[in-house]
């Protein structure tokens, strides 16, 4: 278990690509931190720098107060799970799991006992004598997880461990990963591009894009208080409705053919930092009859997702997405009114910053 601190970490590749820029991030001891971001955002590079597989161009990575930049990977006391499993193809499952212990010259009987125990936990006992090539993807990732869990390292690094798996296996395995994290009490640094997965396994989520850390917080923070437009648009399913044609006057914000009164807190921020766009989460719209007050909309498409449906609408302010319960779905093509919850309005200034957090 360890506390990890990245201070002003940069990574510039020899070809000049700035993969990670001025990264400051703290992972608390025993925390499960997810890094979420589109591909190429620098999240894997960050993980590989913590692992010691990639050199740091500048900056400090501290583990429990000690700078580990320059320490070789094998001395960092970490375990890693790779997206493509990275099992040793020439060894059977038992030897694969035992590799970290063999490297540390653990006694044979102890190795056998520990491998069998972890194989039991992961449900792969009957495969111990098989080669990885004989296993399915899910089983291979279980072996890879077992290999990581065989020791009690300072931290676990997981680089999109479920990326290659089928949907049902992902849901099953992410529950197990979370359970393993709690059982071992280790510090876990987990990379994914799947926000549902991030929300399911992590304590906190860090959002990155273009090598820059955008925001760190719980899923609720990212949904309700995104610091900028990128976070607002990247996080949240179905995605946020963003309106770019915005006029603010007299404590009211105009959206197409409808004006909403701003709550006092937002109204104060508006003066300091004039908004140019406004975002509304799908859940913050209520759908009313065409006769009611609200933003006029035509329901173009109804996408059922279990008990809820995403209603894709056309409005005078631009396209919008709202949520409706399965029992009260509008028909496609129906005229409705959308009523945004004033407390749920997210206003962004010309730099894309959330005007509420921009002051901070």
């Amino acid at each position, binding site marked *: 278990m360890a506390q990890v601190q990245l201070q002003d970490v940069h990574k510039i590749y020899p070809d000049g690509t700035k993969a990670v820029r001025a990264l400051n991030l703290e992972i608390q001891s025993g925390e499960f931190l997810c890094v979420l971001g589109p591909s190429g955002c620098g999240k894997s590079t960050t993980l590989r720098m913590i*692992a*010691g*597989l990639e050199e740091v161009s500048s900056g400090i990575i501290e583990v429990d107060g000690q700078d580990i930049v320059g320490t*070789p*990977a*094998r001395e*960092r006391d*970490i*375990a*890693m799970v*790779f997206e*493509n*499993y*990275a*099992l*040793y*193809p*020439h060894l059977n499952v038992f030897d694969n799991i035992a*590799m*970290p212990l063999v*490297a*540390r010259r653990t006694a044979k009987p102890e190795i056998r006992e520990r491998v069998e125990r972890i194989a039991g936990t992961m449900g792969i006992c009957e495969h111990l004598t098989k*080669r*990885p*090539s*004989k*296993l399915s*993807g899910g089983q*291979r990732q279980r072996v890879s997880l077992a*290999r990581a869990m065989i020791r009690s390292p300072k931290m676990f690094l997981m680089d999109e461990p479920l990326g*290659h798996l089928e949907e049902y296996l992902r849901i099953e395995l992410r529950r197990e990963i979370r359970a393993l994290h709690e059982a071992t009490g280790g510090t876990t640094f987990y990379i994914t591009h799947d926000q549902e997965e991030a929300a399911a396994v992590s304590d906190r989520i860090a959002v990155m894009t273009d090598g820059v850390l955008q925001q760190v917080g719980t899923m609720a923070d990212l949904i309700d208080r995104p610091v900028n437009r990128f976070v607002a648009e990247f996080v949240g399913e179905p995605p946020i409705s963003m309106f770019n044609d915005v006029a603010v006057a007299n404590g009211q914000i105009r959206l197409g053919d409808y004006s909403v009164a701003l709550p006092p807190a937002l109204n104060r921020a508006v003066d300091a930092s004039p908004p140019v766009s406004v975002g509304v989460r799908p859940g913050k719209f209520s759908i009313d009859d065409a006769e009611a007050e609200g933003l006029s909309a035509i329901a173009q498409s109804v996408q059922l997702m279990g008990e809820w449906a995403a209603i894709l609408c056309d409005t005078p302010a631009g396209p919008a997405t709202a949520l409706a319960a399965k029992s009260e779905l509008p028909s496609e093509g129906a005229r409705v009114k959308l009523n945004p919850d004033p407390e749920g309005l997210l206003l962004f200034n010309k730099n894309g910053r959330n005007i509420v957090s921009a002051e901070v």
Partner: protein
Amino acid sequence: MTSVDFDAGAEATPRSSKVVLGFSDYARYLIAVVFVGFSLFPFYIVLSTSLKSESDIFAWPPVWLFDVTWDNYFSALFVFGGTGVLPFLINSLIITALSTLLAVGLGSMVAYGLTRFRVVGGSHIFFFILSTRFAPPVAFVVPIFLMIREAGLLDTHLALILIYTSMNLSLVVWIIRGFFEAIPIEIEEAAQIDGYSRLQIFRKVALPLVKPGLITTSILSAILSWNEFLIATVMTQNTAATLPVYLAGFSGSMGLEWGPFMAVGAMAVLPIMIFTLVLQRHLVRGLTFGAVR
């Protein structure tokens, strides 16, 4: 890369007991048989002549059925030159074994180092290594001879071991390089994180994964060293002379003793054939299947 599901493949193409051969199949077999026959005929002559008595060897028309005799082998092994073929056979074995071992051992280290570490001018070094084989060996014979003489290594095993090692090294490096590059880098990164040093990773992870490459290059190096004649005949006279040197001297010193001559030829083929057949069994393809994804 995906792993191959052998079971699924077997189900998709059920083994039918009735295989219908078309005209083109027969044509293919015919061509193959003719080619194999053409290639193996000289070897057949070597083997059959070595087992014939003197009168059968010179019989015309050639006799196809004859009484097998081992006299020629006996003569070759124990009679000629007082000692027979045995010392030369042993020389060949020692020189081939050691130079192959050295070439494959050193070559795989060179290839690994150049593929895994950022070396200034790495690709130029690869090209340079291959370029040592651009010129025909005869171009180097005189300078090498002078070097070997100055070093006092004329007619020693060490001389041939060193020369063959350096000649085969470039071949090994070039072939093994491709095998190392095919290893998914994550496997070695996993080993780094699991606590292994570079040397341990090389030994425990990388080398086992390029086993097919090691076997291929071992066979090639061994064949080249075993059959090499030009350099062997210049650098050695007697003590360290190899089988090809002995074979070449055969006709000169003893007239044309076809029977024993062919017996030596047959014996010269045998060790390398056994070596190749044994190693070939381990030449399994797709060792890296199932490593990733």
